[in-house]
C-alpha cells in the first residue's frame, strides 16, 4: 500500500524584498496510512510551509511530493483541488470557519463539494460527537475559540479523509480547552485510522503522535 504522504528532497524558496529566502532545504518525509506524525520546531523553522506543500497549497521549488500515492509536483490547481476532495483535510490554528455560515453549514459545505450524499445527518452527528449538538445553527461570530476549533475539527473529519494536516490546532486555545480539542482530535483520528501530520509547539501534544520529527532551519531531523 502506498504511503499517505511521501516528500522527497523538497525545497521551497520564496521571493522577499531582501532577496530569495530558502524556507525548506531538502526535506524528505514519509507518512504511512493511519500513522500520526508530529512536527515540532521553533517558530520560523518551516513547519507550516511543510504542511502547505504537502497538502498541495503551495508549489515546491524542487523535489517531489506524493500525496495519497499521486505525484502532485506538477499538477494544476484544479487537479489538486479534485485530489483533495473528500480525501485530504486541513485544520488551522485560526480555525478559518466561513463567517456567513452556521456551524452545521460549515461542516456540510466541504462534504457537498466532494459530492457526498446524506451530509446533513453526517454533519449533525459529527458536531454532536464534538459536543456541539446544541450549537448547530450558531454562526462563528457567536461561538468561543474552543467551540470554533471543534467545528473546524468536525469539518476536517466529516468526509472521512485519508489524511489530515493540522497546523497548531490548539495554538489559540487555553490549556484545558486545547487539551479537550486535542483529545477529541486524536480520539477520532485513531478510531478511523486516519493519517495525520500535526504541527505543534506543544511537546506534550506531540508525544501523543506515533512519531515526532523536528524541523529546524528548513531541515527535518528525525
Amino acid at each position, binding site marked *: 500500500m502506498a504511503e499517505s504522504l511521501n516528500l522527497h528532497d523538497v525545497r521551497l524558496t520564496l521571493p522577499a524584498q531582501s532577496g530569495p529566502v530558502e524556507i525548506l532545504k531538502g526535506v524528505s518525509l514519509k507518512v504511512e496510512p493511519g500513522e500520526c506524525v508530529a512536527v515540532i520546531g521553533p517558530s520560523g523553522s518551516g513547519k507550516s510551509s511543510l504542511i502547505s506543500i504537502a497538502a498541495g497549497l*503551495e508549489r515546491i521549488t524542487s523535489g517531489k511530493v506524493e500525496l495519497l500515492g499521486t505525484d502532485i509536483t506538477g499538477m494544476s490547481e484544479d487537479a489538486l483541488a479534485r485530489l483533495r476532495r473528500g480525501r485530504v483535510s486541513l485544520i488551522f490554528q485560526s480555525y478559518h470557519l466561513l463567517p456567513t*455560515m452556521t456551524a452545521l453549514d460549515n461542516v456540510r459545505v466541504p462534504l457537498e463539494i466532494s459530492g457526498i450524499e446524506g451530509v446533513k445527518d453526517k454533519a449533525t452527528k459529527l458536531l454532536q460527537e464534538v459536543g456541539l449538538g446544541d450549537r448547530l445553527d450558531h454562526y462563528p461570530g457567536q461561538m468561543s475559540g474552543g467551540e470554533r476549533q471543534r467545528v473546524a475539527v468536525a469539518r476536517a473529519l466529516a468526509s472521512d479523509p485519508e489524511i489530515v494536516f493540522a497546523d497548531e490546532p490548539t495554538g489559540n486555545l487555553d490549556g484545558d480547552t486545547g487539551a479537550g480539542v486535542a483529545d477529541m482530535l486524536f480520539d477520532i483520528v485513531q478510531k478511523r485510522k486516519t493519517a495525520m501530520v500535526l504541527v505543534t509547539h506543544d511537546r506534550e501534544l506531540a508525544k501523543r503522535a506515533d512519531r515526532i520529527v523536528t524541523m529546524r532551519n528548513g531541515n527535518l531531523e528525525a
Partner: protein
Amino acid sequence: MSAAWRIAIRELSGGLRGFWIYLACITLGVAAISSAGSVTEVFTRGLAGEARMLLGGDAMFAVNQRRLTDDERAYAESLGDVSEKITLTVMGTAGDLRRQVDLTGIDDAFPLVGEMELSGDIDTTFDQQGELWGAAVSQSFLDQFDAAIGDEINLGPVRAEIRARLDRLPDQIGTPGSFGPEAVVSIRALEAADRLGVGQLFRTRLIVSANTELPIRELREAFDESFPEANVRIRGPENAVDGLQELLQTLNDFLSIIGIAALIAGGIGVEQATTSFLQSRTSAIAALKSLGAESGLIRTAYTIQLGALALLGGALGLTIGAAAPYLMVSFAGDQIALPQALAIYPIPLITALALGLLSAGFFAIPAIGRARATPPSALFRNLSEESGTRTPVLERSLSLACLTGFILLSTLSSSRPMITLALLAGTAIIWGAFLLTAWLIKRAAKPVADNSRGLTRLAFSNISGPGSLASAIMPSLGIGLALLSLVVAVQANLLRQIKETAPSNAPSLVFTQIPGDRAEDFDQLISGFSVDIDDRDAYRRAPFLLVRITELNGVPTAEAEIADSERWAVRGETNVTFLGPEPEGGETLEGEWWAEDYSGPLLVSVEEGAARGLGLSPGSTIGLRVFGRDLTAEVAAIRRVEWGTFDIGSNTAFIFSPGTLEAANPSHVAIARTEGSEDRALIAALKDDFAGVVVFETRPALEAASKIFDDIALAVNAAASVVTIAGLLVLMGTLGVMTQKRAVEAALLKTFGAARSQIFQLYALEFSIAGGIAALLGALIGIAAAYPIIVSVFEARWSIPYGPVGVILIAALGISVLGGLFVARSVLAKPAARVLRDA
C-alpha cells in the same frame, strides 16, 4: 498638539488607501450640486446684468390685439422716452415660396437701449420708397426664401424690399431668426397695410426708458387705477424674459435633486468605507484603549481623520463645481444664447460643501461611535459585523442632527422647498423599500441555502448571513437604477409621443387667421388640393377668439382660488371657440350640452381638469372680456376632452354656445392632413384670396422638436447617470471590501477541493442575485414613478418601455456578474497557503 490630533495626523500620513470610494462618493455629490448651483448663478446673474437691455428699457406696457390708446400712451410718455414695437405672425412670400414669418414692427425711436445690428444703413433701411417698404430680415429668412438683399417680398399685407440683413436685436436673446424666418419693418408699413386693427392678431409692446429704476408694482397699481379696463400688463427688467428665470430655477432644482440623490446613494459607500476602515483599525484602537486612551480620544482622532477626508472630497467637488460654468462655456459656449456672468459664486459652493459634509456626518458618525464604544476585550475577539456594539446614543443623535441639517439645508436652498422635501421623502421611502427588500432577501435566502448543496448553499448563505452583499449594494445601486429607469421611461414615452403618436395624429398644415366671413370660401379652395373637407380625419375648421377670463363665480380671477396647474387659463388671454352641436370626441360628464340651434344667453362647456382647478361646476358663471366687451357665461356642461387627437375646437378647454360670440365674427383656424406633395402649391394658392391666412407646416416642426428632445434626453440622461455612477462607486467599494473578506473563504474552498471555475460561479451567482434583484426592483420603482408623470403631468399615453428598461436590467445584471467575477479573480490570485497563514 493634543494626542487625538497626533494620532489622526500619523494615521493620515499613511496614505489614502481604502478611501478612494469615500472620497469619490463625497466628491461626486458635492460636484453635482455645486455645478448645478454655479451654472444657474452664472445665467441668473448674466440675465440680471442684461435685464434692462433685454426688456428694452425700464418698463414695458404690453397688450394684445390692439395698440395703446392715446391716453395710455400719454401716461407712458410721462415716465420717460417711449418706443413702440409690434410683433405678429404673417405669411412671407418671395417668388413662389410662401412661409410663416415672425414680423416685428418698430418705430423710429427703437431701440431705446443698445444697438440694432444691420448689414445696411439704419436710417434708410425701413423707409418707404415708391410702393415698397424697407425690411431687414434674418439670415434664416434669406436662406429659407432663397432671397437676397434688394429682392422684393411680401410680408403678409406689406409689400417690401429687403434692404439689410438683421444680425442682432438688442432686446432679443440669441441671433434673430433662430426659430424661423424673421423680418423687421417700420410700424408705419403695418399701419399703411391696415394690419393693426382691433381684433387682428398682434402684440404691442410700448417700452419706457426713464434712465432710472421705475417702481413697477406702484406703477402697475396706478395705471390700473387710471385705466381699469385696459388689460395692459406692465413688466419691469426683473421679468425681462418671460418664464426664463423660472426655467433656470427648475433646471437648478432638478440638477440639485440629482446631486442630493447622488449624495444619498453614495452615502452607503461612505458608510461602508468608514466601517471597513475602522474594522481594519480594530487592533490599533484596542491597543490604544488598553494603554489608557479614553473613548473620547478615539472618537476625536477618527472624527478628525474622516472629517479631513470629507473636507478633501468636498473641496475636490467644489473645484469641479466652480470650474463647471467655465468648462461649459469653453465646450458649448457658442450654442448657449443666454447672457452669462462668468465668475466663482460662493453661495452655491458653500451650500454644496455643507450638504456633502452633513451627508458624510450622517453616514460615517455611527461607525465612529461603534468603534469608540467597543470594549478593548471585544475588539481583540474579532467580532463578526452583526454581533458588534450598538451605536451609542451620542453618535446616533449627532448622526440624526446631520440628517436634519441635510434635509433643512437642501429644502431651504431650493426654490421649490415643498417639491424638494417631497423628493427627499420619496428617496427616503425608496431607500427604505430597498433596505426592506434586502432584509426580505436575506430572510428568503436562508431556506434556499438550507435546501441547496455545496457552493449554491454558500452563495445563498453569504446572502442570508452576516455582512450580506444584499444590504451593502441594494439601496445604493437600486436608487441609482430607479432614477435612471424613471428618466428613461419618461423619455421613452415622450419620445414615442413625439416620433410616432404625434406625427400620426397631428395635422400636416395648420391655418390661422382665416377671415370668419369667408371661411366657407376657404374650405372650397382647400378642397381643390386633394383635401376631402367632409372627411373629419382629413380636415377640420373652427372659429377661435382670444378672450380674457375676468371673473369666476362673480369673484375677480385675481382673488379667486385657482389650482396652480390651471392658472394658464386666467394668466392672460386664452383661446376659446363656440360650437352648436356637441362634438363627437370626449363626453359630457356633468350638466347638459345646449341645443344645436341654441341662441339664448351665453353658455359654456368647460374641460374637466380646468373646471376642477377653477372651481367650476354646472351653474357656475365665468366673466370674460372679448374685444373690450364684458360678458358673463353660465357653465352648462363639464366635458372630458381627448387631447392629442386629430381635432380642433372640441379639444379646447372652453367651448361657448354660438350666438353672442359669433357676432364678433372671429377668424377661424383649420387643420388639414395632406400627403405633402401639394403643400407648397396650396400655400402659394392662398396668396391672392387669403393673403392674411398664416400657414404653419408641422412636419418640419415635429422633426425639429424630435431633434431638440433627443438633445435634451441626452443631457437629462447624463445628469441622472450621476446617481448611477454613485451606485457603481458603492458597488466598486463593495467589491474592494468583499475581496478582502472573501480571500480566506476562497482559500478555504480550495482546500476543500473546489475548482477555480466553481469559485467563479459562486461569486457570479451571489453578485447576480443581489445586483439582479436591486436592478429589477429599481426598474419597477422607476417605471411606477414614471407612470403618473406621463399620464398626469404630460397627459400623454403610457406604455411600458420594455426595450430601454430591459437594457438597463441586462446592463445592471451584467455589471453585477462581472463584479462577482472580479472578486473571484482577485481572491484566487493569491496562493491559498499565504492567505490562510496571513489571515
